[in-house]
């Protein structure tokens, strides 16, 4: 199982992803592909994402049962804690560069 979520992606990349995967919600693509095809698709995402951002998750033989990669800037950042891959949610940066207290 493979899931890709893109935000702010150019239409041609969204169209291209629909060549192999099913777009079940805006920017959310689902499919079931082999490693080689997955790598080819991710290469396409990186080359086509421009100013947007994307994440790809797939099931694999890790402790959590899946792995994921990201590209582009997003407030959710992957962090690795003792071999466990988690996600940090960064605070919003306001105009003067200070972190919002939210």
């Amino acid at each position, binding site marked *: 199982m493979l899931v890709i979520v893109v935000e702010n992606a150019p*239409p*041609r*990349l*969204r*169209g*291209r992803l*629909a*060549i*192999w*995967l*099913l*777009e079940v919600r805006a920017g959310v693509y689902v*499919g079931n*592909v*082999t490693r*080689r*095809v997955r790598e*080819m698709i991710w*290469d*396409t995402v990186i*080359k*086509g994402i*421009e100013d947007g951002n994307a994440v790809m998750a797939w099931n694999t033989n890790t402790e959590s049962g899946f792995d994921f990669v990201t590209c582009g800037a997003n407030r959710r950042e992957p962090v690795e804690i003792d071999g466990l891959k988690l996600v940090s949610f960064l605070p919003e940066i306001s105009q003067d560069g200070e972190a919002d207290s939210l």
Partner: protein
Amino acid sequence: MNGEPILPPLKPIPIKDRISVAYVEKGNVDVLDGAFVVVDKNGIRTHIPVGSLVCIMLEPGTRVSHAAVVLASRVGCLLIWVGQSGVRLYSAGQPGGARADRLLYQAKLALDDETRLKVVRKMYEMRFKEKPPERRSIEQLRGIEAVRVRKMYELFARQYGVKWIHRNYDYTEWESGDVPNRCLSSATACLYGVTEAAILAAGYAPAVGFIHTGKPQSFVYDIADLFKFETVVPMAFRIASKNPKEPEREVRLACRDAFRQSRLLRRIIPTIEQVLSAGGLPFPGRPDESIAPAIPNKEVIGDAGHRG
């Protein structure tokens, strides 16, 4: 070019990594934002993951744009124009004989009486799970096969409690066929589509057959027969026994299951290679005096016969 970043060129993925077949019944098949879509008369768009499909059956009531055909060929998806209920009319999208070495190998095997007989014997061995009797001509083997096939149809008909007269191929009068025959025709059409796509993807020619000859799809029938009685035939009889309202639709749904359970897409290309190698000829290398192409072929993840 306006200097914007461009996406990598589209390439086919291997047949074994795909899903089998999709039927498109009504609407305009087109390309929007680089995606393969069917737009119906109400303007509803349906995306079709063309790159993840082996073949698309286009039924009466579809129109296909030039861009859609280009896209299907780029991703190595075979477009098949079929008549009502899967009676085949025409096919395109993937020209055959993409690999001259394989085409010549196949032709050499088919031209020589001795190697052709070896290939035919191998095909019978795979179908009936036992070696055919020695010293029989292809003609005699075909006779033995015909009897066995008739018996198998009768056996399946008895097993599923279906009234069976004989196999009726009259595709000019579709509705005249009885339900089991309609189910069988619909199911085999599905199998032939997938088989033809696999033969093309492997780089061979659909017309160069061994048991069947003289038809544009002779080799398709040869290869499909290797899988027919373990996949679509029992399924067609099972569906016929339920006397369904829409036999063709039921059959198509069941075809998908049958292909998945038999792991057809994973087995089909290796089986083609296995059958041909029974001819005992070495795969031809490049002749000494030949020169390599000026623009070398790029490495692709698709199958050998896919035009990358």
